[in-house]
């Protein structure tokens, strides 16, 4: 086994040569990404650069035509999204997709019932309820626990999105623009939450436009432009890269 193989074997997420087209439009090309366990990765790029498409391909919502994704050493090709979630991969959606006919507690309950319990953990009914309330409290939504998503503000819906992703007790959490529209203190709250998660062993990929948040959170930064990976390294180094400046910041 070469050094690269060893590296690949220990990375939590290993994306190799990933490509995705929509008809004639090339959304992603030759994306390679290695995420070791425990990493705090920031993923940035202009709108339309393919960040969400990449997330969709990793999580199984979309099928990539080229390349492969491995999670904890296991190839994900062909696995439906729900099985990837059960393996420990969780994501929040950029545009919140709550379950509109369920109240907030039940929204959180779903991943508990279908992901956590599917892995073999059995919670007593009362414990499930408590877990749901705990998660809602962590994102500051416990007050609206019995409300329906339609009673939430946009910002609150983003928090619900994040809480629901966390409820599946993931090994890797991909937060897709969870902080858009939040106030300064709310951003701090969410960042603190993500840091806490990371300290408990959850690998986090943060996709954001809010540079301050990305810079303070990430230990590693990846830049995506027009479907290609442009840079990958320490945040301060990446930001000094003239190509990145030109392609991303200069616009």
């Amino acid at each position, binding site marked *: 086994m070469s050094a690269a193989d060893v590296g690949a074997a220990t990375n939590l997420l290993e994306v190799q040569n990933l490509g995705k087209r929509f008809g004639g439009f090339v959304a992603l090309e030759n994306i390679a990404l290695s995420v070791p366990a425990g990493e705090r990765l920031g993923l940035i790029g202009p709108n339309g650069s393919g960040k969400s498409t990449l997330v969709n391909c990793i999580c199984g919502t979309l099928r990539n035509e080229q390349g492969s994704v491995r999670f904890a050493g296991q190839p994900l090709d062909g696995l439906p999204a729900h099985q990837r979630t059960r393996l420990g991969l969780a994501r929040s959606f950029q545009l919140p997709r709550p379950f509109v*006919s*369920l109240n907030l507690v039940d929204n959180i309950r779903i991943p508990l019932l279908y992901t956590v319990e599917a892995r073999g953990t059995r919670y007593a009914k009362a414990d499930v309820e408590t877990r749901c309330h705990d998660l809602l409290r962590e994102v500051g939504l416990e007050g609206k626990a019995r409300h329906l998503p339609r009673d939430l503000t946009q910002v609150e819906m983003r928090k619900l999105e994040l809480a629901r992703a966390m409820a599946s007790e993931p090994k890797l959490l991909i937060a897709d623009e969870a902080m858009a529209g939040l106030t300064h203190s709310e951003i701090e709250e969410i960042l603190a939450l993500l840091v806490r998660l990371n300290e408990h062993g959850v690998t986090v990929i943060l996709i954001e436009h809010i540079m301050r948040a990305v810079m303070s959170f990430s230990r590693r930064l990846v830049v995506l432009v027009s479907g290609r990976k442009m840079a990958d390294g320490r945040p301060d180094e990446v930001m000094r890269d003239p190509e990145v400046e030109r392609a991303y910041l200069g616009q």
Partner: protein
Amino acid sequence: MRTPLFVVACLLVGAAIFGAAIGLGNDYIFFAGYVVLQYVVLSTAWNILGGYCGYVNFGSAAFFALGAYSTVAIYKLIGDNELPHVVPIPALMLIGGLVSGVVGLGMGYLTLRMRGAFFAIATLALAVVLETLVVNWDFVGGSRGAYILRPENVPVIGNYVRYLFLVMLVLAVAALAIARLIEHSRLGYGFATIRDDELAAEASGVPTLRLKLIATTISGALMGMAGAPFPYYISYLQPDSTFGLDYAVNSIAMPLIGGTTSWIGPLVGAVLLGSLQQIVTVTISSAVNLLIVGFLLVAFVIVAPNGIIGLIHTYLQRKPEDFVGRRRHIEADAPGTVP
């Protein structure tokens, strides 16, 4: 209320109804009541896939007819008068349910990867294809139809129609119990997520395809079980009426009018609409009957999307979560509200 208790309660109510019907003395009650109970089963079955999961099945008639034609096939195989003694109705129902369940599973496997609208059209297509197959299958009579001889008497209950009524009553209780059990279980939550947002459901770990297949199978099986005794009820079975669109429209209209979010809705819709139809068919005509169903369906779907149950909620002005069942599909009540 736990399920066994619920079933006992329902059976007691059912026994009371049966007793009252006997007391009234007129056998027509049993004839008409059978149809209403049949619709209770069909609506409840439809609602499991339609109301709970959000997948519209236009082919209810096909599953119903498959149950009926399984009975006919066995009848022709074993031979006329022997049948009820060799294979009693409950067994026929299980067979009919099995056949329809398997077809439901197969249909689901073929069609459930499609988006909702395509799925609905596919169910219609499947129903017609199945009908064409049956019409061209001479063993069960083809387009000429099939005659089924009803035995004269059944021990204890006496009159055969009363026996059919009783059997359908038990099936109706079973269907309601199954629907209620699903609603209060993990499966019910899963179904609701499929209805609300399948993509998000998958991302949350819900195996959507598997759940949808479960829904189509249970739904199809129940419809087949409802159809199995039908040849005995009607004595002369014809494909075009058995596969008729009337079953499709009723099994859609009754849950939508009653309310799709819980097991009570299809029950209310079937009893009210079913009884109304029996009255109208006898007093006016069967064509007017269908017109009324069509109008009610369109009216309710526009004005009262949550059905009669929803109207009761609004009237009582309670918060919907407090009422029966845990999950409500909430619509904006006034037109013009953007979600």
